[in-house]
């Protein structure tokens, strides 16, 4: 069994160093997926090898990845560039923006054509009933239930300055995931949410877009950001996309993508071609995700055991060292997985790669392994400890020949707990484009499509069961017979 783990580790780690092909990334929403596919098709047509990493976290993660050369290009919006990346409050021209980006080694294509700005939307009949047509009308209704995406809530050009500008004092504001927000709007659990002006859902769900009567929202023109050291022919190919996509066409592509759940197909509409046969091999797709998932779990678990058991041994001896180890591993456990990834990605050596995902999962593995190792050792009766010492065994021999075997059941239980939790946690790896069963789950969540979610969730659940059985089998091998017998 043992030799398999290092191999998986090598596989998981080496995936970041693949052949030199152009790596495109997209953010995790439909339009970004479609634009990513369009860029990929464009580059492939121009004769480049291109790979698309779908649905990677948010602006900061992608920007850092671009700066570090983890990715070569991704679709972005001028408003986001000004506010989030360049942190400028005053409006600026595209030339100015291009110049500032160039200083950081990043190029910006000309705008693709459409303006996807933020908008506030409501159910149309509700808006009519209340007489709300403009954002300023909302002042009359401070009790409306507002459900905003987390990004919009926190943005410099988001909810807080908007409220200040319009003098809104909404009392009932909370964060809701984007796709779920549309469902919440449809069933009336919220009255108002933020949207992108090209969202397919606006026409599909017959939503009213509130007029931005004070012109608060900046322009969100779509562009591609690319590394200046990218091949000039590739840049030229991308530049040809300039001014070829208007608002209605983009909305149509988005709507098509959401209907078919196939971004490549939607992108192909842009090229007015028959879609390239997308790898429809369902089983192969799921097997690929599952295998990658398993690699992430196995590699991080292996590291968890290598570090966790020795730390557990240290933590089993009461004192400040023990308290420190247990406190730190406890604190790590409380960091939300997405936040941990966001913290790791900008660090050197990490970035957008399987290494980052494996490291984050490894950190989450530590607590159960450390705690169970420490507890298992502490539970050994004093009589047994004194007997082992009394025989004249060296402290190391006491540990290896007596204490660790006696604690093996508890230690293995900790490893098993880690492994099973890990199968669940590893789904976040998809947020940084590392793949695994999180990929269908996240894209399904964005599309509000349960079928796609289940494509990831069911194999993940089965995998957790499999891991459970695997460890039950392992107990027969690793736990000495004398401990498995009943009194």
């Amino acid at each position, binding site marked *: 069994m043992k030799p398999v783990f290092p191999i998986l580790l090598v596989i998981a780690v080496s995936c970041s160093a693949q052949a030199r092909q152009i790596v495109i990334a997209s953010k995790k929403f439909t339009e970004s997926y479609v634009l990513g596919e369009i860029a990929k098709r464009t580059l492939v047509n121009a004769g480049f090898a291109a790979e698309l990493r779908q649905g990677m976290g948010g602006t900061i993660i992608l920007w850092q990845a671009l700066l570090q050369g983890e990715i070569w290009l991704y679709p972005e919006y001028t408003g986001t560039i000004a506010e989030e990346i360049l942190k400028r409050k005053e409006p600026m021209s595209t030339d100015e923006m291009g110049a500032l980006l160039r200083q950081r080694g990043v190029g910006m294509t000309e705008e693709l054509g459409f303006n996807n700005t933020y908008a506030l939307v409501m159910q149309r009949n509700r808006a009519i009933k209340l007489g709300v047509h403009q954002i300023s009308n909302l002042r009359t209704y401070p009790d409306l239930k507002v459900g905003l995406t987390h990004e919009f809530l926190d943005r410099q050009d988001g909810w807080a300055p908007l409220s200040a500008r319009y003098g809104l004092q909404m009392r009932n504001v909370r964060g809701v995931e984007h796709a779920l927000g549309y469902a919440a709007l449809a069933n009336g659990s919220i009255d108002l949410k933020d949207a992108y002006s090209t969202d397919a859902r606006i026409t599909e769900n017959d939503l009213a877009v509130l007029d931005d009567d004070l012109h608060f929202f900046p322009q969100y023109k779509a562009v591609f950001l690319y590394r200046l050291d990218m091949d000039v022919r590739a840049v030229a190919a991308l530049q040809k996309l300039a001014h070829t996509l208007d608002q209605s066409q983009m909305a149509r592509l988005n709507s098509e993508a959401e209907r078919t759940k196939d971004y490549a197909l939607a992108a192909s509409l842009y090229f007015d071609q028959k879609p390239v046969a997308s790898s429809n091999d369902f089983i192969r797709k799921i097997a690929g995700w599952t295998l990658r998932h398993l690699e992430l779990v196995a590699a991080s678990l292996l590291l968890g055991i290598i570090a966790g058991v020795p730390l557990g041994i240290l933590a089993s001896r009461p004192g400040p060292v023990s308290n420190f180890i247990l406190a730190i591993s406890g604190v790590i456990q409380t960091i939300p997985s997405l936040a941990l990834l966001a913290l790791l990605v900008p660090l050197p050596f990490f970035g957008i790669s399987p290494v980052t995902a494996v490291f984050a999962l490894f950190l989450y593995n530590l607590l159960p392994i450390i705690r169970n190792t420490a507890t298992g050792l502490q539970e050994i009766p004093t009589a*047994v400890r*004194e*007997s082992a010492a009394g025989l004249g065994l060296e402290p190391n021999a006491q540990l290896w020949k007596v204490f660790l075997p006696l604690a093996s059941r508890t230690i293995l239980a900790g490893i098993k707990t880690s492994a099973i939790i890990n199968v669940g946690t590893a789904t976040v790896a998809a947020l940084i484009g590392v793949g695994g069963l999180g990929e269908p789950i996240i894209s399904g969540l964005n599309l509000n499509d349960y079928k796609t979610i289940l494509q990831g969730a069911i194999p993940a659940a089965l995998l957790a069961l499999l891991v459970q059985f695997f460890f039950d089998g392992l107990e027969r091998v690793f736990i000495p017979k004398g401990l498995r017998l009943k*009194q």
Partner: protein
Amino acid sequence: MIAPINLCRELQKDALSKMIKLRSVSKTFGTTVALHETNLDVPTGDTTVLIGPSGCGKSTILKLIMGLLEPTSGSIEIDAERVSQANILRLRRRIGYVIQEGGLFAHLTARQNVLLMAKHLKEPVERMETRLLELCELTHFPEYALQRYPVELSGGQRQRVSLMRALVLKPSVLLLDEPFGALDPMVRAGLQDELKEIFKRLQQTIMMVTHDMAEAAFFADCIVLLNEGRKVQSGTLEDLRTTPESDFVHEFLGAQRALETI
């Protein structure tokens, strides 16, 4: 065979008459005194029994000798060697230590428990096997049960395994901490008889801890009575009975006798 051994014993007694010496040894845990400054000599080849009510410090003395506890003050000598961190491992290997609960390792069979240390020291396999059979014979432990794990053994059998484990390296001292404490009375009486027989055959220096006066009288060449961390009196049962050095000696003996006559 018996005569020369006896002769040796007499010679040893003259030459190196004290196997274990405690000089001004004390032990405190925080503010609690487990053992006040104590001097104690354990004659070579004799059976010395430490007795006293619980908390009197009798087990503490054994743990101090084993180096499981460090004395707060004073020094301990085993076979004319002063116990220190440097030689404690070597000294422990020359002492057999048997404790109340047996302290057997649940993940090892009876055979593995007995031979653990011998294997660790890479003793030749043949010699180990011979020794194991000798010990089975000595302790009346059935050979067929050697493959069993501690949970599969009776309380008496577990104590026999614990004794075999203590004896496997032919120690020069045997320390027993309430070896019958966890056994029911019938098994206990039988094992006491056997153990006395074994002691007789071994002709070794033995230190035993008990709280039972009858047991002490049954085994001891010399009884050391302790109370509240102090040595109260030492001598034969007869000495303690006829010339008690304090009221406590009288009371302790009296209480024990009263229990036995019920």
